[in-house]
């Protein structure tokens, strides 16, 4: 009669687990393991002698703390479904990190076999790992494997069968120090009242998990007869502090046995490692990130200047051609004031957007943005959000729509909602033309710095708002952020250009679509009713503007800005397009810069106030639709709109008043 063995294949991500799974089962399983993909366990089968062995490939996980869906799937399978044997696949080139999971698996007391995978690579670089010593210290069978060639697979299956047949008890005890051990003893004692639970899980393991704040275990204990007694023991303990202390003890154990196991472990610090030591430094990490972001905006502004001047000259040429074309007056007005003034004014800023997208693509492709998320983790955690929340913010620099969609990788619903609500404050590429125009006109010497400051202000408001939401309407604790850094790569020119085009071309399409449409509408409003002076207070645009102007007058804005801001809700670039139409930027080849400079209403303070307001006010229409889709709630969508308006108004008002007070001008 054939016997069945169920084996769980566990291990850190990227240790060659899937390769080994395929080598054992003969499958061709491709397993994705990246944020946003629902990770599932996969099964395969193999026959060995009289045994039918089922291999269950679990999602890669660094620990069994069950913070994310991946870890929960892996942990629950091991603790609840109780496979006959757990095979932990270990990356032999990175023993220290991989052994952390070993210490946790050993604490559960499951029958365990270690597959020392990627052994060929470790040997090739000169590592001397003693399997005998490893077995001796860990009291766990260790098999050398090379998943890519299938080396060691038969020995591994043999060890698995032996482990399943003999079922030796491998429950290891890690000493956590007198203070923690005393609490563990009390919890174990309290748990004796719950015989059903302690027959299913080792009591010490339950105590350790409870001390580390494991919610799933806490719920199991709370539901049983030992709940009250355990709660009494846990009262007054700090799970975060205890978890850190216990993790230190586990790493202490690893540090103690590692030199015995690996007598010569060559650690090559690659250029990636070297750079990471600095860019993720506790003190220098954030300043380096800010300095690089300044560099990005400086380049965006400065390098685009000749391209902008070229497009502006081209628009001027078109305008002069239209002026002498002999076409009907209304058509000349439309082509000049509406098309060139509206769409043309926005097109001038396309080089800035493309350059910013290129820089972001390069930073992302090199792997630096992953480090940026890492260095911001401490700050994010302090405000009550996981470091993972910073990734959607970084994506939001390009466009808030994919930024909000990227929040799908965040496990906790409250963390995710907060990240969605603050994302519109991150300055997207569509707002860049407004900054470039006004910073270029009123702060020509420090335009890059002003633009950089606006991006930093956006991040600051987003972080401040997240803190506010966390401490008021959406309380909770963020999950710790665990992230494997991709190695630095030098991006290829075609890839970077492709990424730039992917992101930047969206703005070209918008220029031909929504911006053109709004330019036509604004031109019509500025021209009607028939017979009024174009763009005058008597036109429809003037009437609308004057109706809403009292609302924005305290900020120093006139009716033209009011109209531009109103249409800017549809797309942020439209603010510039609308101003271009209302100022008749295309007419007589006159550029918008000149018209704004000639307007006595505009000064550095008003310009800065306007830039701040455009940065923070309403999310654009598409972003609003995505917020509705991702939150599934009109209530939160309306909240996002109203909150943005209030914050924008408040901050812009402060800027306007402080600016006038300090400079004495407008």
């Amino acid at each position: 009669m054939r016997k069945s063995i169920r084996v769980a294949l566990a291990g850190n991500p990227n240790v060659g687990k899937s390769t080994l799974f395929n080598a054992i089962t003969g499958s061709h399983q491709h397993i994705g393991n990246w944020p946003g993909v629902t990770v599932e366990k996969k099964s395969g089968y193999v026959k060995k002698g009289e045994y039918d062995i089922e291999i269950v490939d679990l999602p890669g996980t660094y620990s069994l703390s069950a913070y994310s869906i991946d870890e929960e799937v892996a942990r629950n399978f091991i603790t609840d479904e109780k496979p006959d044997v757990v095979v932990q696949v270990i990356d032999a080139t990175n023993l220290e990190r991989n052994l952390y999971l070993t210490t946790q698996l050993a604490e559960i007391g499951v029958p365990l076999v270690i597959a020392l995978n990627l052994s060929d690579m470790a040997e090739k670089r000169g590592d001397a790992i003693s399997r005998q010593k490893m077995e001796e210290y860990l009291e766990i069978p260790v098999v050398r494997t090379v998943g890519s060639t299938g080396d060691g697979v038969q020995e591994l299956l043999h060890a698995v069968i032996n482990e399943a047949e003999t079922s030796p008890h491998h429950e290891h005890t890690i000493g956590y120090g007198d203070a923690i051990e005393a609490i563990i003893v009390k919890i174990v004692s309290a748990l004796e009242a719950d015989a059903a639970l302690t027959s299913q899980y080792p009591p010490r393991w339950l105590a350790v998990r409870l001390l580390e704040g494991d919610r799933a275990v806490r719920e199991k204990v709370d539901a049983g007869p030992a709940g009250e007694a355990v709660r009494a023991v846990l009262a007054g303990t700090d799970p975060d502090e205890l978890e850190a202390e216990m993790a230190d003890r586990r790493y202490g154990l690893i540090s103690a046995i590692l030199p015995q196991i690996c007598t010569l472990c060559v650690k090559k610090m690659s250029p990636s490692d070297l750079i990471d030591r600095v860019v993720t430094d506790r003190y220098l990490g954030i300043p380096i990130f800010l300095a690089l972001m300044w560099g990005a905006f400086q380049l965006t502004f400065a390098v685009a200047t000749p391209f902008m001047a070229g497009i502006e000259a081209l628009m001027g040429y078109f305008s002069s051609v239209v002026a002498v074309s002999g076409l009907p007056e209304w058509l000349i007005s439309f082509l000049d004031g509406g098309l060139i003034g509206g769409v043309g004014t926005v097109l001038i800023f396309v080089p800035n957007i493309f350059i910013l997208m290129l820089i972001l693509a390069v930073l992302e492709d090199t792997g630096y943005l992953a480090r940026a998320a890492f260095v911001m983790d401490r700050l994010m955690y302090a405000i009550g959000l996981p470091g993972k929340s910073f990734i959607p913010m970084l994506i939001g620099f390009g466009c808030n729509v994919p930024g909000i969609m990227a929040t799908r990788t965040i496990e906790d619903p409250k963390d995710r909602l907060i990240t969605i609500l603050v994302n519109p404050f991150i300055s997207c590429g569509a707002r860049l033309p407004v900054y470039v125009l006004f910073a270029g006109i009123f702060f020509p010497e420090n335009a890059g710095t002003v633009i950089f400051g606006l991006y930093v202000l956006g991040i600051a408001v987003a972080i401040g708002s997240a803190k506010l939401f966390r401490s008021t309407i959406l309380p909770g604790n963020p999950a710790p952020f665990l992230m494997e850094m991709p190695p630095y790569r030098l991006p290829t020119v075609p890839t970077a250009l492709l990424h730039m085009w992917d992101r930047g071309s969206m703005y070209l399409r918008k220029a031909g679509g929504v911006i053109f449409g709004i330019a036509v509408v604004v031109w019509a409003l500025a021209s009607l009713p028939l017979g009024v002076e174009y763009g005058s207070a008597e036109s429809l645009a003037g009437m609308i503007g004057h109706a809403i102007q009292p609302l924005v007058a305290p900020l120093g804005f006139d009716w033209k800005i009011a109209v531009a801001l109103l249409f800017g809700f549809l797309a942020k670039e439209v603010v510039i397009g609308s101003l271009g139409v209302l100022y008749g930027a295309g007419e007589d080849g006159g550029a918008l810069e000149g018209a704004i400079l000639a307007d006595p209403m505009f000064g550095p303070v008003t310009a800065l106030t306007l830039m701040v307001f455009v940065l923070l006010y309403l999310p654009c229409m598409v972003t609003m639709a995505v917020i509705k889709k991702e939150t599934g709630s009109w209530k939160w969508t309306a909240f996002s709109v109203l909150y943005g308006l209030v914050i924008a108004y408040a901050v812009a008002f402060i800027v306007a008043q402080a600016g006038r007070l300090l400079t004495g001008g407008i």
Partner: protein
Amino acid sequence: MAFTGKIAFCGIFGILYLAFGLVQIAASVVPVVAEAAGQLQIPADPAAGFALMVTGAVFLSGAVKMQKGIPEGPAFLYVGILLGLAFGLIAFLASGAQAVETVFFGEEGTVWQAGTMLVPMFWLAFGAVAGFLAWGREFTRGMDTVS
């Protein structure tokens, strides 16, 4: 000492980057400093000054760590060099773009002056180039440590 040259390089360039960064920040808030700095082609740009100070801090951290014999000390030298090169390139491209704009699209009679390019962020990068030529290959090979 194995790191003597690297420590000296980090110390000198750390102080230079930090000093010029401070002057650029001070020039943006103190008019007298701005006037004096302007004559030396030092712009009153606080954000650029901040970037210079960060580069200086990275170099000085490297100097201190190498002095103490901490193995990761050279990493700070390398990243300092990379930051210096990156910011030097930014200054060069910004000046180059300004030159192109002036020559092709500038108003009549406007002449681009090459001297405007010689801001600290640009000329300090020559030190970073020298550092990269001296230790760049060592860096790209990685560092061996045995535990």
